């Protein structure tokens, strides 16, 4: 699309959406972490300050990444060791393993999810999530192997599955998100339907087993059916979230006036920030948030509609899909439409390094919308070579094979056969 003074360019829409979400996030995190029992008046809270700083860093990252050609970032030329995607995959894998090692991974709330890295902490699951998106974008569009073969299809799933498994130990929600997102990318990447259909049931079974064998996950599922059966335990999060919507009503309590954030609603700056938004800003807040995610989806859609290289299209789809799916699941959790999962609302929740990583990925979307590479020549699949004609060796000449004595005379034989 040409730059025009009358219309926002695609990347401007994206910038607007990202900026708005970051601002909304910083504002709501500050609001949610405010404590009213001290002095009256505006004060930056610890969480609010932290989130604002990270949002600023994330925004800078967004622009830096966005102004570099995505083909340079995801360069796959020149062997395995110079393949950036492979490196990313490797880093994600190594950190995912490292975080599981005691004394290295930080344990918060009983789950080992954080890897301390100097002053900040990194969630390897965030890395893994995007590594899978980038890997699939490259793999599905450049097709170094013949994906029409089931064995090659399974080979593709190996890194995806491995990262999923590593992540599922730390964070079931992110693993599920990775799996669903990978599925959408595989569908869009035109793998064979029956390949997918073969793989899905075992994956579902594994997921179900995983939910069942940990008791607390199972209790959470049961609590989802009737949150009021355990209002102080498993149902607490859900009930408090529901109460937030009730307290706010359609009009909302007004910015900063939320009550549920005062210790009632758990995880109010991260997983349940949407409930805080709805309590304070009402239906308007919900519409605004969803509209901004739909804006990102719109940008992704416009990019993949363009006449351009398929890596760019696939990247746009993957990134848009990942962000919107995560937002969707988070909102579904907050509205108690699905059982509780620990997923943050991308760009809005207080997340530290996760915010920066998400912004970097969205920077890639920006880059996709900025740099337009020409569509590859549609390479026809090479004519299947005619099957080589088998050279039939002439039988070796029979040379003086001693005949065995004829036990039945020709005449009798003839009689025997002709007579029938």
């Amino acid at each position, binding site marked *: 699309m040409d730059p025009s003074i009358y219309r926002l360019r695609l990347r401007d829409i994206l910038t607007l959406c990202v900026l708005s979400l970051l601002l909304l996030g910083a504002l709501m995190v500050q609001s949610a972490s405010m404590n009213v029992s001290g002095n009256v008046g505006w004060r930056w809270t610890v969480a609010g300050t932290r989130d604002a700083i990270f949002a600023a860093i994330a925004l800078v990252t967004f622009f830096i990444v966005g102004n570099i050609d995505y083909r340079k970032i995801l360069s796959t030329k020149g062997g395995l060791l110079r393949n950036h995607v492979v490196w990313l995959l490797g880093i994600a894998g190594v950190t995912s393993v490292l975080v599981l090692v005691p004394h290295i991974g930080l344990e918060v709330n009983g789950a080992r999810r954080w890897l301390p890295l100097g002053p900040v902490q990194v969630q390897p699951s965030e890395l893994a999530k995007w590594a899978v998106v980038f890997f699939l974008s490259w793999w599905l569009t450049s097709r170094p192997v013949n994906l029409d073969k089931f064995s090659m299809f399974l080979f593709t799933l190996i890194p995806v599955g491995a990262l999923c498994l590593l992540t599922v130990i730390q964070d079931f929600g992110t693993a599920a998100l990775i799996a669903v997102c990978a599925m959408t990318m595989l569908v869009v990447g035109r793998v064979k339907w029956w390949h997918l259909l073969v793989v899905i049931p075992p994956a579902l079974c594994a997921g179900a087993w995983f939910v069942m064998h940990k008791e607390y996950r199972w209790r959470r599922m049961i609590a989802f059916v009737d949150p009021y059966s355990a209002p102080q335990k498993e149902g607490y999060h859900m009930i408090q979230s529901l109460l937030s919507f009730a307290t706010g009503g359609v009009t909302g309590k007004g910015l900063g006036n939320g009550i549920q954030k005062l210790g009632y609603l758990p995880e109010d700056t991260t997983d349940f920030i949407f409930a805080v938004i709805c309590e304070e800003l009402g239906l308007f807040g919900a519409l605004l948030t969803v509209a901004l995610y*739909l804006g990102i989806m719109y940008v992704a859609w416009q990019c993949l509609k363009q006449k351009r290289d398929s890596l760019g299209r696939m990247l746009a789809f993957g990134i848009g899909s990942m962000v919107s799916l995560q937002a969707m699941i988070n909102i579904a959790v907050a509205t108690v439409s699905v059982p509780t999962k620990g997923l943050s609302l991308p760009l809005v929740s207080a997340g530290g390094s996760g915010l920066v990583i998400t912004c970097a990925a969205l920077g890639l979307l920006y880059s996709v919308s900025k740099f337009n590479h020409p569509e590859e020549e549609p390479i026809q699949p*090479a004519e299947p070579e005619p099957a080589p004609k088998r050279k039939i060796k002439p039988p070796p000449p029979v040379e003086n094979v001693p005949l065995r004595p004829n036990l039945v005379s020709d005449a009798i034989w003839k009689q025997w056969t002709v007579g029938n």
Partner: protein
Amino acid sequence: MVIFSPQFSARRAAVIMLLVGGAFVALIGRVAYLQTYGRQQTIERADRQQHQSEILRARRGSIFDANGMLMAGTVQTQSLYCDPKFMQDCYQEDGKSLVMMDQDIDKLAKLIDKNPIELSELIGDKSSSRFVKIAEHLDDRTVAEIDKLDMPGLGTMPTDERYYPMGSIAAHILGGVQKDNVGLEGIELKYEKLLAGKEGFKRVLKDARRRPIAVAAEDYLPPQNGQHLILTIDANIQMIAEQELARVCTDYRANRGEVVVMDPKTGDVLALGNWPNFNPQNLEDSKPEVRRDRALTDPYEPGSTIKPFVAGPALEWKITRPGEVFPVHGPHYKSPLRSKLVTDVHGYDQLAFWDVLVKSSNIGMTMLGERMGKDRVYNALKCFKFGVPTGVELPGEDPGLVKPVAKWGSSDLCSAVQGYSIMVTPMQLCRGFCAYANGGRLVEPHLIKGVLDADGEIVSRAKPSALELMPEAVDRATSLEVRRILADVPIRGTAKGAASKIYNIFGKTGTAHVSQGASGYANKYTSSFLCGAPFENPRLVVAMIVHEPDPEYAKEHHMSYYGGAVAAPGATRIIDRALAYLQVPESPAVPPPPPAIAAVLYDYHANLYGDKSVSARDALKD
């Protein structure tokens, strides 16, 4: 390596994105549902969780006597409660033991005056509970000492408690309150709304740790403290009256007694007492019968004390004159009104009407009644509003009973003039007698002098109407005449022994048989004395009624059960002490009655007509 064509399906991408977008729209719908219809189920729970309502109690107003002395107030005491679970947990921790807990409970029990074993049982039995009330009504000093014990799991809570600094004085007027500070009887009940005020409420927004955050303007209603009452009761006169009543009642082994003291010119009730009395502080110690304010609620047949109220109008209406001579002729009289003989205690030959009242002759009054007829007697009683509540500001007042004249039989007329077959309350008698003390006006008795608001500003002030505007029971001349006649009662009449040495008292005794219903009258009496003083310028009117003094006991101790002997000395002492307290100067001597009156009096002698050897005239000459 073989390169296959890059593949990408924009159509599939569109489908997936549409699905995600649709999911977003559905979630928005879910949000909208939760904020509107779904809200109805959850908002109540949210409200319960986020807010804490508390009732702000209004402080109950105080009651003061006419001089501003506190008769009923509200003090804040502390209730002690305990969290047994927390207490046990604390004693099991950090090097302490349950033995120490028992020792501390022993100390605590001493402080709050309880049995240590019972106390530790109380705490032990409810060891899983979080709130047990241990003691009530603790003063600040005890609370400070309990604080010194430094026991974990103990707490105090302030409670408002009604406090009666005068003890049982004026108990029947005040009445007392129930546990929850709601008036039970007396003024406390009658002025419940005014005294209680209006309780307010506060709905506090709290955070999850139950720390208060804010109170919205519409969630706060400050309590309106109760208003204070100022009574017309004078605590000193009240005390004098109750003391003398108690003395009389105990001296004569009476069943019960009532006394009413009024200011005849304003209608202020200065004292109102019942015996036996009770302590409003400890209502549980007294029976409901004892708490009845019988001076208002229990009408009785007044006997002779009704006579001035018939005589006054009779004199006004010129039906008789003070000097008219009534031919009594002995202690028994066969009246045409009824078959039963009318009896006098003493027999007289002839009595001036003056002396009919002074000597309280039933026969003389019956003769007057015959002359008056039902209607006039009825009207005479109605002049003093017998049978109508006086309207004094106390609950449960009985109107008494004066039958409509159409239902009077002829014997009722005969009874009525002697004070039977009608029922009056002591308050009505006292109010009626005020008419003779103030020049004939029927005052309205009242108890409330004024109302102050919680800050002590005057809200309203009782304005007694001028005496001249009050309805006239008898005209002024008649009232003075009757007053003069009654002033002879303590000098020459039935209350001869009860004359005051300081003040001139005018009064009327009464000794009524107690009706036993259908079975007639038993050997039980109601001795009463209705009086006012000083005669020259009456300041007080006292009605003292002593029910059922023990006649056997009186006989044994050479005492009489007549009103003049039982109630009159007590009433006189009340007058003496109360007037001295009011700094009323000593009275001059009363001029003697006109000689013509006294000359008419002839003692009846049993032999006057049967055995002529002794004549009354001869007896007088001696």
